[in-house]
């Protein structure tokens, strides 16, 4: 008997990636999409969706198989985020932030740290969030003021982190804090995994947001929070470098989310344009509406293919990963905003009310232009890469 090798399908995806993508899509259609409007309306974190994603190993995707994960590469993680976001942006953030928050650990953690911390994350039992942003350190991430001071076998952390996605529902917080205020600007930060709850740690407030309303955006306070030195990721001073390497792999996740939102909006708009009749014909048959749908579809596919290429190039170890990550996030975020805005337009008055999902998608799309670096920061990163190093 001869074993058959697996032929590539769906152009650039492996048979496995296609199956994984389709499985997540079916799961999202059947179990997540019906919850999306309610999650948005209530603004409550959907723990049932966390459980669902955990049960089906979706939250294990970013983690290595040896520690209980699925061992998905960057493109595979993005395929899953895209399919979940097509149904519900908030739900896709559960996976995207599990990926983001754990990246410093996965990139710089010791074998002991991985063995100790990853299994709970891979199973989805614990969530992890990413604590870099502060009231005074937004786009200028290196302006962090939170301090970590060595004290025996521990560090003592003091400071405030703002806009921390899933900050109030995570069991671990990846915190960036200043360990050496005298060091040069990009060597002053270190990175820690803080297991919470722990004395001195407090969720100070939750934001009221325009979109991603089921995903709690928290302000986290650290008052003399003791963290064992064994939870420091990498060496002292490695923090900023870890953060930058994290963005190389997390920005594609946000691009995937943006592509998914846009795809969901296109599908809703297309279905409506096929059924809604005015002046005796389907509105999609009016050229002005048909052209909008055509532009939406073409723009989404362009963003998607850029994203998939970026994933492959980054996974292959390009020295230009920052630029690729920034480019796919920039294009996908702007595409999501444009496409969802047009989707609302196609639905007319019905697009503006919450009986249809496109107004929610439009509100959700906006955040993809803001977080993990605003679109302006992405352009800055791209321009610097072009001017500084020339083209790759």
């Amino acid at each position, binding site marked *: *008997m*001869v*074993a*058959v090798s*697996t*032929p590539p*399908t769906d152009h650039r995806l492996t*048979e*496995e990636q*296609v*199956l*994984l993508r389709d*499985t*997540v899509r*079916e*799961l999202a259609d059947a179990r997540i999409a019906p919850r999306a409007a309610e999650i948005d309306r209530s603004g409550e974190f959907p723990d049932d969706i966390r459980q669902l994603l955990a*049960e*089906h*190993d*979706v939250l*294990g*995707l970013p983690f290595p*198989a040896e520690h209980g994960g*699925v*061992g*998905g590469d960057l493109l595979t993680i993005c395929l*899953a985020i895209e399919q979940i976001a097509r149904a519900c942006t908030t739900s896709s953030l559960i996976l995207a932030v599990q990926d983001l928050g754990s990246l410093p650990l996965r990139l710089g953690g010791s074998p002991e740290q991985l063995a100790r911390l990853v299994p709970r994350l891979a199973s989805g039992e614990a969530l992890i969030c990413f604590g870099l942003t502060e009231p005074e350190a937004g786009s200028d991430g290196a302006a962090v003021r939170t301090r970590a001071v060595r004290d025996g076998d521990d560090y003592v952390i003091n400071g405030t982190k703002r806009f921390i996605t899933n900050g109030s529902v995570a069991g671990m917080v990846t915190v960036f804090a200043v360990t050496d205020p005298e060091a040069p600007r990009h060597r002053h930060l270190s990175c820690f995994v803080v297991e919470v709850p722990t004395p001195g740690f407090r969720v100070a407030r939750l934001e009221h947001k325009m979109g991603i309303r089921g995903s709690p955006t928290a302000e986290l306070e650290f008052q003399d929070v003791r963290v064992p030195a064994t939870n420091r990721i990498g060496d002292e001073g490695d923090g900023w470098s870890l953060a930058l390497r994290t963005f190389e792999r997390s920005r594609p996740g946000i691009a995937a989310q943006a592509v998914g939102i846009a795809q969901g909006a296109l599908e809703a708009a297309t279905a409506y344009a096929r059924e809604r009749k005015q002046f005796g014909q389907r509105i999609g048959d009016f050229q002005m509406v048909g052209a909008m749908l055509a532009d939406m579809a073409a723009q989404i596919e362009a963003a998607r293919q850029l994203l998939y290429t970026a994933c492959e190039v980054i996974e292959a170890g390009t020295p230009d990963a920052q630029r690729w990550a920034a480019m796919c996030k920039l294009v996908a975020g702007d595409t999501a905003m444009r496409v969802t805005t047009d989707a609302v337009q196609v639905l007319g008055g019905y697009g503006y009310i919450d009986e249809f999902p496109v107004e929610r998608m439009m509100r959700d799309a906006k955040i993809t232009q803001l977080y993990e670096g605003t679109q302006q920061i992405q352009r800055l990163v791209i321009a610097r890469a072009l001017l500084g190093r020339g083209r790759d």
Partner: protein
Amino acid sequence: MHIVVLTKPVPDPAAAAERLGPDLRLDRAASPAVVNGNDEYALEAALKLMEAHGGEVTILTMAPPNATDTMRKALAMGATRGVLVTDPALAGSCVRSTDEVLAAALRELTYDLVFSGFDTSDGNAGVVGAAIAARLRLPYLSNAAKIEPDPEAGVVRVRRITATGYDLLEAPMPALVVCTQVLGEPRYPSLKGIMAARSKEIATRSVADLGLEGAVGGAVATTAVLDSQKPASRGATRVVRGTAEDGAREIVELLESRRIV
């Protein structure tokens, strides 16, 4: 407990892209394929029994070479291995060829039970399971709503759906069971299952491997499709909107006006 599940790739009903070729055969390139829905119920039943009793589940498929795509999903759901009978000579096979080929492939396997789905969504003949049982002289247990093997006693009990209720059947193993949807919803593959499916074996067999050269396939088909017609259009759809009460009244009035009620 070794179970063989017969699975067939069929055009994805969700894609609604089915098309016949000029020879009135299904154009399998025109539509994405999925595992036949009823076969997934049979597979789910087999996987549950494997989880309860241990053992293995083998999926057996007769299809074009790209059937490995759909077989991979069955492996991701938890099947142990796959056997794909594929051969250009099998294009255009009739039901007789199909069951002869599958029976020959089964003769090479060891098993306690063979499961088939109730029918396939593209062929609809609904007799392949019965024909295989006849060829292999296996006990034939159809319309199964519940399957309870007793490996120690070497028997299987099946609750068979009848027009009036259930029959409780018992047969020695090996036996062939035709599964129904009452057995329970098929699972989604877990992502770990998908990753694990990569390393599972799909063995391929040709007509010659099975010693059936010249005996099966399109060239010796016993039936031929002469014509194919689409059902007549049912006319315009009317959607009733409004409150449940008003809607119900409107529907009853409509049915009365057509003397249906």
